[in-house]
């Protein structure tokens, strides 16, 4: 089946640092390969969709105020998202989306926002708003089976703890907590990360892992995606890696 269906949740509220660009990139890479890519949007008080009918659910990041606004609505979607995840839907989660799938998020004012509890981790925001983890970040990942260093931009006060299966190890930047060794959360159908930028911009392997997973979700065959010309993307990443790691 040469088609993927994406549900972009709270696009109008959770869209920091170019997060919506991730969907633009996935759509672009599908289009270049002749894969049909349907993107539906869900926001507060939209009709409850059939979450399991989607191959990919995407949630971006937002400021504290926006996360408070959506948290109540997100609880209403809890059963639907949980069922979809168990059914094999891919979850791609950035920053706030990442935090809200854990047990809870305590914001900078000490207000607890309940998460959906899909995963064991939890997040406590640094109470001092000046002490944020901000800057470029480079992490080493193995999700494709090969070593791939990926580059993004983090800006979070939240300190995420209790992650058992991180996305990668930190080569530059902070990661899940201030000066931590690991970044993000990974399962075969979950990528959760603090990386904005947007995250997929210079990391085509990430985009293609997600697209490949979505295409193969309902079949036993492994789709081989045809190569795209990623020279610009890879040069872009290499410039940053060279600069940040002083190569």
């Amino acid at each position, binding site marked *: 089946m040469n088609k993927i269906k994406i549900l972009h949740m709270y696009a*109008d*509220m959770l*869209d*920091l*640092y*170019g997060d*919506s*660009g991730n969907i*633009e*990139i996935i759509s*672009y890479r599908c*289009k270049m390969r002749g894969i049909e890519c349907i993107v539906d949007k869900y926001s507060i008080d939209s009709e409850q969709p059939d979450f399991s009918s989607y191959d990919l659910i995407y949630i971006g990041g937002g*400021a*504290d*105020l*926006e996360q408070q*606004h959506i948290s109540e609505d997100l609880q209403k979607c809890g059963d639907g998202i949980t069922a979809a995840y168990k059914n094999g839907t891919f979850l791609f989660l950035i920053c706030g989306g990442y935090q809200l799938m854990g047990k809870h998020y305590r914001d900078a004012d000490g207000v607890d926002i309940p998460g959906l509890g899909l995963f064991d981790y939890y997040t406590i925001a640094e109470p001092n*708003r*000046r002490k*944020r983890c*901000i*800057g*470029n970040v480079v992490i080493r990942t193995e999700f494709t089976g090969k070593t791939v260093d990926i580059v993004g*931009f983090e*800006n979070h*006060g939240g300190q995420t703890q209790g992650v058992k299966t991180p996305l990668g190890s930190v080569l530059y930047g902070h990661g899940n907590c201030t000066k931590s060794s690991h970044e993000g959360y990974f399962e075969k159908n979950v990528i959760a990360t603090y990386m*904005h*930028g*947007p995250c997929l*911009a*210079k990391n085509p392997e990430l985009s293609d892992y997600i697209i490949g997973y979505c295409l193969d979700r309902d079949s036993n065959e492994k789709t081989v995606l045809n190569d795209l*010309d990623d020279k*610009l*993307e890879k*040069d*872009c990443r290499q*410039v940053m890696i060279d600069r940040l790691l002083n190569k």
Partner: protein
Amino acid sequence: MNGILIIIGKLAVAILRLFKRNAGNLPGIVLWHLTGGKCCKMFRVSCPIIAVTGTNGKTSVTNCIAQLFERSGKKIIINKEGNNLDTGICSLLLRHCSFTGKIDADYLILETDESHVPVVYSQLKLETLVVLNFFRDQLDRNGEMETLIQKINGFCKTFDGNLLLNGDDPNTARLGRANPNNKNVRYFHAEPYAFATKTIFEASEGRFCPFCGEPLEYEYYQYSHIGKFKCGKCGFGDYVPYITAEKIDLEKPVFTADGHEYSPKLNSIYNIYNMTAVAGAAKLYGIGHKITDSVISEYTVNNGRMETFMLGDRRTTLNLAKNPVGANMTLRVMNEMRGEKELLFVLNDNVADGLDVSWIWDINFSVFERVARVITSGTRAYDIAVRIKCSDYPAENIVVRPDLDDAVTELAATDGRKFVIANYTAVQPTRSALKRYIEKHGGKHE
């Protein structure tokens, strides 16, 4: 103690001048350390202070308000160089104060960085605060925008001076509710112009009522999230404007405010908002139409804001874009122009730009029309190239030239109309590179 601090500060100014260095910020930094962060506190200011803040347009509006008073024969002090942090304002006052810290002027007109409003005006008594707009800009320096608005809102809670707010920006207008006892809150507003839309055109923020979380209802959008909005639930946005720009015609360009027709030089809706704020300040201080008219009709800028260069016979327009709003504006102007054109986009990620460049993903490149080629440059030349490529622009028409001189040479290699967009720290180096090209190969800088 104050006396000693002031002497140290003045000495710092004198030494820097001796070495022909700009004393814009450094003396203030010295005093900032000596005073434990309260470097503006030692001055004795008895005249009124007017501050201008917001993401876009601060420098223009500050200069115009200063002109209003100067042309009324008042003695003013203004931070012209855009040194708008507490340390910059401290350095300015050091240059103008007596050895006892006394400031001799009729008005202080201060462009003030958004994040520094509470810092500076907890130390100096403010009479009037003009707030223009809040857009995503250099977010990583300030933390998230909401934090920034909260900071200013916190200051406004106890401020009972004049607040002149952009009533068409929900992020700004909300400050009007910070102190319910303040009777001096006023709003400026603009009627729809020819390109106003019913639906939102560019990615933006502030789409929800900050008081009750309901989506805001817009009668029209002028650009980004600026427009006539209202919250259907709590009535936020339902105010009587103090001054309104009407009969806006950007072709001429003209607009009417407070019964008087003005003819500004710059023909953008952004400038109309800025000039409406200026007319609002004039009204507040009882400055007549004649003086206001002369200020508004003469004001123009020449620092990479719609500046023209002739590369040989090839007309080139350079515009600064610090954020998606500014970039989208240039793309609009570019698209409204007939014929083929080429774009050079220069993107840096220096500290003053905010280290993060993800804002380029909020630029709407899908509107590109008749853009034959794109050249990218700057420290993040590749990032902007990838961004434009993913908006479905043919990759083979994108040329990456991180070095600016190479980029300008590449741009000038073909005939036709050229546009250049550069972000904050990229503007001056880009101007220099354009001028170097002209010196070497001919052309003109207008």
